[in-house]
């Protein structure tokens, strides 16, 4: 593992739960970061990826300055809602903003926050303006908190499956992630889309019952 001669391609492939690739120009600067990490034999034990350099002076995009780990998805049936979770760290010197999400398993996606409504019930709703991660900060997407919402699955997603997810930043750069699906019975907050913009065919006030226990 502590082998400075490890090829970058191999280093990127080392994880089953947080395969991370960066599009376009970001790929170049990330690769540089990976090399730097590998030569120091520092490894992120959560992702298996060499830890990136903390000073990406050459970073030109938001995607190139984030590190993603702990990616997972709540296994669910076709037509159900579900959600994706991860920890996203901003190693750069500028804030980054995640503005949209896309996945092959859901035609409609939203970035959600979970807040208490007037009655104290925890309710999730669309996060206006997206998720901002300050320089050096970390965004935790987790049940009961911020998360990426899959509004309606176009296929069954069984436990152990890999779910693709693309997160796009305000500068147009994006990261492609792979989320492992897990059976999970929590995250049953009420869904309220009245506070957000029109969200298509998702019904207001629907409970997010995402299959869970099969």
């Amino acid at each position, binding site marked *: 593992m502590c082998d400075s001669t490890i090829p970058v391609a191999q280093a990127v492939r080392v994880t089953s739960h947080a395969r991370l690739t960066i599009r376009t120009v970001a790929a170049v600067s990330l690769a540089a970061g990976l090399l730097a990490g590998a030569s120091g034999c*520092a490894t992120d034990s*959560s992702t298996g990826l060499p830890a990136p350099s903390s000073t990406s002076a050459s970073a030109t995009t938001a995607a190139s300055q984030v590190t993603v780990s*702990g990616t997972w998805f709540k296994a669910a049936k076709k037509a159900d809602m579900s959600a994706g979770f991860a920890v996203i760290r901003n190693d750069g010197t500028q804030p980054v903003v995640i503005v949209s999400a896309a996945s092959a398993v859901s035609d409609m996606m939203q970035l959600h926050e979970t807040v208490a409504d007037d009655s104290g019930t925890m309710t999730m709703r669309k996060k206006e303006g997206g998720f901002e991660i300050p320089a050096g900060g970390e965004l935790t997407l987790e049940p009961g908190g911020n998360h990426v919402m899959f509004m309606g699955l176009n296929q069954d997603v*069984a*436990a152990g499956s890999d779910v693709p997810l693309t997160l796009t930043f305000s500068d147009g750069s994006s990261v492609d992630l792979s989320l492992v699906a*897990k*059976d*999970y019975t929590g995250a049953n907050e009420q869904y309220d889309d009245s506070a957000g913009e029109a969200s298509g065919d998702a019904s207001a006030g629907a409970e997010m019952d995402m299959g869970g226990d099969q």
Partner: protein
Amino acid sequence: MAAEDPADASRFSLSRRQLLLGGAAAGLGAAAGIGVGDIVQGRAGSGVSQMIPGRPTPTAATGALESGVGLVGARTVDFHGLHQAGVAVVPQAHSVFLAWDLRPEIDRDGLVRMMGILTDDARRLTQGTAALADSEPEMAGLPARMTVTFGFGAELVRRGAGESAVPSWLGPLPAFGIDRLDEAWCGGDLLVEVAADDPTTVAHGVRMMAKDLRSFAVQRWRQDGFRQAAGARPEGASMRNLFGQVDGTVNLVPGTADFDSLAYAAEGWLAGGSSFVLRRIRMDLDKWDKLDRSGREQSVGRTLSNGAPLTGSAEQDEPDFTATTAVGFPVIPEFSHMRRARSEDRSQRILRRGYNYEQLTDGAVESGLLFGSYQADVTAQFVPLQRRLDELDLLNEWTTPVGSAVFAIPPGCGDDGFVGETLLG
């Protein structure tokens, strides 16, 4: 943001690993509040290293008190490697054996998904990091030398790669005359053994595995075992079973050529793997109470005080089976357990990993031994040994096998792989 989120144990691991491995040490080491870890090598050749991590501390002054260095709970066993770590590791104080039956619809693809998830859980939990979707992430913080070991029954192998992949020995053992088997403790398609030096850690690991197995399998049986508590005796010392006997004296030693050739399989998808036999041996403590001390020692051929052969003075002394008493009888009786268990054929040795058990059954306490053994080939090594004990072993007067299961133990995996990939990949 979320800097205080305890769920994000991965950050601690990251910092620790970077410090330990020297990478980025200059940057991170300068930051206040990061404890310095310590690496302790395991037994030579065992392939097991134990890391005693530091943990973030609020100030330098309290660092020594809170570093966790040396605590039983902080120790870890490497997960990755040619072999699954649970085979050669010095037995932990607590172990839970779980057997599962696959749901009918689980095919090869389902098995790949299942083992991917279970491997990821084990990879994280054994290193003190919460599993993904872990509802109680704080419970992952004390790995306590946790290992998670997976075994495959014949049905799983069949579904994964067809009949031809099933080893000839993978299935029920031959019937033995002493057996009084209860189906409730036999068989299973998948074995998951969760072992650690802390029972709370084991409970959490078992819970996580059970949750992630729900959509793949139904639990068939669960057997909980214990040995002397961690730290109660020097590590690796033989345990006492519930008859009070020193148990497990003669054993294969990790790191030796004998161990590598007799404990591990060498060919096919099982290369680097092994086989595991788990026998539930009920022990009749009430009947044992009626036996006097010399009878107890003669039944096994060893002293109760320290486990020495009746012809020796220390536990590891070689027994002298030719020694006779003043009236001409063997000092170590022909019918003793030790005499019967020993074969002239050195290839018929096994790696024993026994655990005591006590369980309330029908209002009465059932006590016994979860006799676990690893061997390259069940038919070549375990069966002849068990045949000899079946034919004659005075201990049979007080012991009864009531459960029996055999599993193929796949080899270990690397950090981008999963346990079972040599069969399913």
